[in-house]
């Protein structure tokens, strides 16, 4: 089936993006990435030893030939810091793609909409392909689309919470209005959550914590791959409408049409 995810000028078969934080070892992370079937892997630049003289840096465990390395700006508290991190990533030889995260508070790591929009404008101007992490705010999603972002990435619930699609209704509006791919990011705790997002018409999902802290991260990565695939196929197959009342297959008023 020719069902490709197109972001900016690139096409991907997999609709599952995976993050690289919180894993118990780089080796487990590498295996989980492989099992996920993902083609886009995001890494926090602040966790990368940019002036490393050797050693087991995280990038050595991510095959740049196999995955699109998507640096993220996690740790940035405002637009200027995010822009700086994105530039650093590019000058360190990473792709000019950036997962834009501007999170001024460290507890829930919720995104700052004002600074995110500001940073997105600057980064798009500088030629970056920008994938912004946002709250599930339909108006903000349109604003980011208008300034030239390649996707929007609304949260299902806050990062690491594993609570699933708590923002379901707002995400439905975002998907309905979007002219760019919608990637549900953050809070998906189980393959069923990922499947639900895909059934709703999300173009892709991003998962990290749920895989990294699972009892068996490699098996969980594989389960998420299946969840995403199942959800996508269900979406393409067009789900029957949900109804509150029974839809009788032998209507009682059929005789009137006879």
């Amino acid at each position, binding site marked *: 089936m020719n069902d490709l995810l197109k972001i900016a000028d690139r096409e991907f078969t997999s609709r599952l993006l995976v993050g690289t934080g919180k*894993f118990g*070892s780089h080796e487990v992370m590498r295996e989980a990435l492989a099992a996920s079937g993902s083609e886009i892997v995001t890494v926090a630049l602040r966790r990368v030893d940019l*002036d490393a003289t050797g050693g087991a*840096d995280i990038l050595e465990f991510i095959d740049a030939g196999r995955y699109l390395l998507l640096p993220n700006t996690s740790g940035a508290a405002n637009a200027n810091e995010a822009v700086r991190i994105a530039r*650093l990533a590019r000058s360190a030889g990473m792709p000019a793609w950036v997962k834009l995260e501007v999170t001024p508070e*460290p507890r829930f790591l919720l995104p700052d909409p004002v600074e995110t929009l500001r940073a997105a404008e600057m980064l798009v101007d500088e030629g970056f392909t920008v994938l912004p992490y946002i709250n599930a705010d339909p108006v903000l999603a349109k604003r980011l689309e208008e300034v030239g972002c390649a996707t929007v990435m609304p949260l299902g619930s806050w990062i690491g919470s594993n609570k699933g699609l708590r923002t379901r209704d707002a995400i439905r509006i975002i998907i309905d209005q979007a002219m760019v791919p919608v990637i549900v990011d953050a809070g998906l705790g189980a393959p069923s959550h990922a499947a639900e997002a895909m059934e709703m018409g999300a173009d892709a999902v991003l998962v990290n*914590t749920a895989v*990294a802290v699972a009892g068996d991260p490699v098996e969980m990565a594989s389960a998420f791959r299946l969840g995403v695939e199942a959800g996508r196929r269900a979406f393409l197959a067009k789900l029957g409408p949900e109804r509150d009342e029974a839809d009788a297959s032998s209507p009682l008023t059929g005789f009137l049409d006879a």
Partner: protein
Amino acid sequence: MNNNWNGFLGRPPAVTFANELGMIPFERFLIHASEASSALVDRALTKEAGQRTLEDFAVLLSPAAGERLEQMAQASHELTVARFGRTMQMYAPLYLSNECLSSCTYCGFARTLPIVRRTLAVGETLREARHLGALGFRSVLLLTGEHEKETGVEFLERHIRVLAPEVPQISLEVQVWSEAEYQRLAAAGAEGVTIYQETYHPDTYGRVHEAGRKRRYLWRLLGPERAARAGMRRIGVGALLGLHPDWRYDAIATAAHAAFLQRHAWRSSVSVSIPRMRPSESHFSPECPVTDRELTRYVCALRLFLPDVGLVASTREPAALRDGLFRVGITRTSAGSHTEPGGYEEPDEAGEQFQIADERSVAEVASHLRSLGYEPVWEDWARPTEAVERMLVEAR
């Protein structure tokens, strides 16, 4: 508006932690902490993470909770892994000076003690930092005694500036400063401040801090708020358990302080250190030492009350206990530490602040963490170093 404990709904928000501390019903909470029934413990344990109150925290310090320690530890472990992942942040203490004008009865640096005093010159600090860098550390905690002139703001600025190009993450555990002074230190390149209140009990505080600027209880109490307002991104608090005869008092106050800072200093990440009194040159011995089981209960209770607060364990504690606590709820730790100025390059020449109990090397601790299923995290910068900045400039 959030209230962290029962019985205070409807009160106006506390402006500083001093206000809030004054509102804690210690008498009632201390009764919970020593006599809570197993039914109360049950209630506290069955609540969802994030729903527990300071009162629940006090209940979880009780002997009745101690009988459920394994259950608490399992819950604490799960919360920690969910929030922080299977990772451990690594840092190293770097003592700049043991000069001190304060006389604190418990401290190896106290003015009255006949120890070898040493204050590092900027070049010596850089050598120590490079030594730590070669061991893998990218996060360094600078420490001094309390000496206004020898280790004042200018001194700290000079040392921070010389380290900033090479050390991505610099925190301070030094004297307490004004907001304007913290701004200067932040501008120089420091991004974290740790302040132990030592004890939150005002009378005990006055008794153990016999002389010197450190006698100013309130100035110290509000230090973390000032540091956060000045833009410090990491704020650490802690009490030295065992100073005040009832450790539970300080446990409750510390938890309340961290909870207050999470709301008040919302842009900063808040961590709690769990130091216990250890032997030092001062030969202070705590009246009522905190046992290993009590310390573990404290760690669990902190995690269950504050699911996303950082918990810090230093090398004051012996290896076996540390290894156990890593899995229970610790998120940040030091390893291979020296507590005497210049101690990495020239060990044992100057007086140390306290004795190290976990004497394993950095590599040993890191490899043990991996065997427990944790990835040691060295690199977690907020600010790119100069070498990285140069790369950026050259690339443009």
